[in-house]
């Protein structure tokens, strides 16, 4: 797999906290295993402000999506201070339009929170020199990670090696 392939790794720390544990070690270990410009998607039972500050200091981009039960999905883009654009309050087709219009020139990654799994967007992404990963969270919103591809071969089939794997952390509509 090309190191330009976008990946989202999911880590739910709610069971750790519910058991009285301290998840920081698990988070840092998970982050260490994440490739540069990829995403660690942490699900926490509250908005983890100290963690967000710590990860931002480490040069990561962090974007938080609040879930209906009070939990928070925290997208951490490693080694890339990009902040996920929140498109969850846009009706279709505006999120699709915003993603495809995004200027990725000079960027190593871009992330977007979308209102749902972007069924209509995926085939359009496949026609562009991009690698992408999508993860659906519990309220149906989806995190989209885009990475520009410079390798033509990889760009044509950015997800072939992993196509059978569903990267969703929740139900996909």
């Amino acid at each position, binding site marked *: *797999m090309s190191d330009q*392939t*976008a*990946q989202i*790794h*999911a*880590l739910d720390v709610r069971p750790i906290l519910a058991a009285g544990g301290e998840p920081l070690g698990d988070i840092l270990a*998970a982050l260490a295993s994440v490739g540069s410009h990829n995403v660690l998607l942490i699900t926490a039972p509250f908005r983890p402000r100290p963690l967000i500050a710590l990860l931002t200091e480490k040069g990561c981009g962090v974007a938080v999506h609040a879930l209906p039960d009070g939990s928070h999905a925290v997208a951490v883009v490693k080694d890339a201070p990009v902040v996920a654009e929140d498109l969850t*309050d*846009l*009706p*279709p*087709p*505006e999120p*699709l*339009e915003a993603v*495809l*219009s*995004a200027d990725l020139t000079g960027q190593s990654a871009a992330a977007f929170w979308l*209102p*749902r799994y*972007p*069924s*209509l*967007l*995926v*085939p*359009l992404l*496949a*026609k*562009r020199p991009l*690698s*992408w*990963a*999508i993860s659906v969270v519990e309220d*149906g919103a989806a995190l989209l990670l885009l990475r520009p591809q410079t390798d033509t071969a990889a760009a044509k089939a*950015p*997800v072939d*090696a*992993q*196509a059978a*794997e*569903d*990267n*969703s*952390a929740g139900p*996909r*509509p």
Partner: protein
Amino acid sequence: MKLGAATAAGLSPDQGPPLLVPIFLFCMAPVSLIAAGGVIATSPTSQWLPAAMTATHIGTLGLLGATMLGALYQMLPVLAGSPAPAIRLGHGVGGLWVVGAVSLCAALWRPEPLRFFVAIAGLGAALGLFLGPVAIALSRAKARAVEVRGMTFAVLALGIVGGLGLTMAYGWATSALPANRAAWVTVHLCVGLLGWVGMLLTAISTQIIPMFYLTAPFPPRIASAAVWLGGVSVLLWTAGLAWGLSATTLAWTAAPFALYVWLIHPIVALKLLAKRRRKRKDVSVQFWQAGSLVAPFVGIAAALTLLSDDPRWPLLFGWLAIFGWGGLIVHGMLTRILPFLVWFHRYAPLVGEMKVPPMRRMFPPSRSGPALIAHLSAVGLGTVAILTGQPVVFAGAGLSLVISGLILAYAMVRLLPGLDADVGPCH
């Protein structure tokens, strides 16, 4: 922790039907509004029965039916993840549906056996070509969500209501109507308005309303229970007809699902729409709200039809159900889905590569707003006309419906590729 790249699953534009298939069926909506309005505006009082029958079937076959067939073709791949096979048959469905619907309406207006036989052939063939592939698609659907079950029951109801209708048309043509005609008409009406139109609109709305209007999700337990209630009701009415139950008994068995379709669902929909996250002015929302507000009056008119012999109530019930509740919602969805489809097919692949027009400009409020006002005026005037029997008010209602259809037709013509210079890509 799971590691992986994105799933490759997604909806390719190739998976959807060719744009012309749903568009052709959708084009019957404005034509039907104009035709129904013309019939209502010009019919003398002495002709009210054939005029009412004709306008009813223009509304059910042209405005509601054709639009819903087109919508089903479009929604199957999106909501069920399973496109209809042999989708090019959809062109034949559209053509045969037009021939059948026009012939049936002509036959109801001026009965002639040949017209009925052409209607039976056209609508029968259209139903066959539609139901076969759609049933296959639904049987292949991986998703078993509420909306997919709702679509399945609605398609079943379409088959039943079509079968009942074609049998009665044959009875008209050969002067051999079923002996228990009132029961047949009751079941035809219940399966058609509640099982087909009600089931599809309510089930699909559980996805459409949150998706297009950014509302909270539709309460899943209510939606799921309602779909099962509707499915069982359709089977019960059909079995009841076969068992020889009376029209009145059959009508009362419709009460639970009617209560959901014309009271509970509209209340939930109105509450969700009132609390939508983004309150940008959207005329299609106002169509939804208007249709939902009319719905309880449909239920009241239905109850009065059962409880009273006054001939105005069944007329009012049909008017409010077809051109009020169902017609307003379908009209509103056309103002939202049409520009979305055209924009997606024409411009989505070009976004980011050239400047493309925003979807909102393709069906602006300056067109949909007046269409809503004209449609609402028609519903209001028609109600007054039925209650007072004043020919001049009937004429006003019909004229309003014609105006509403003309505005919708104009907006649709402006949307079609190549005809609207204002919305071409900006090179």
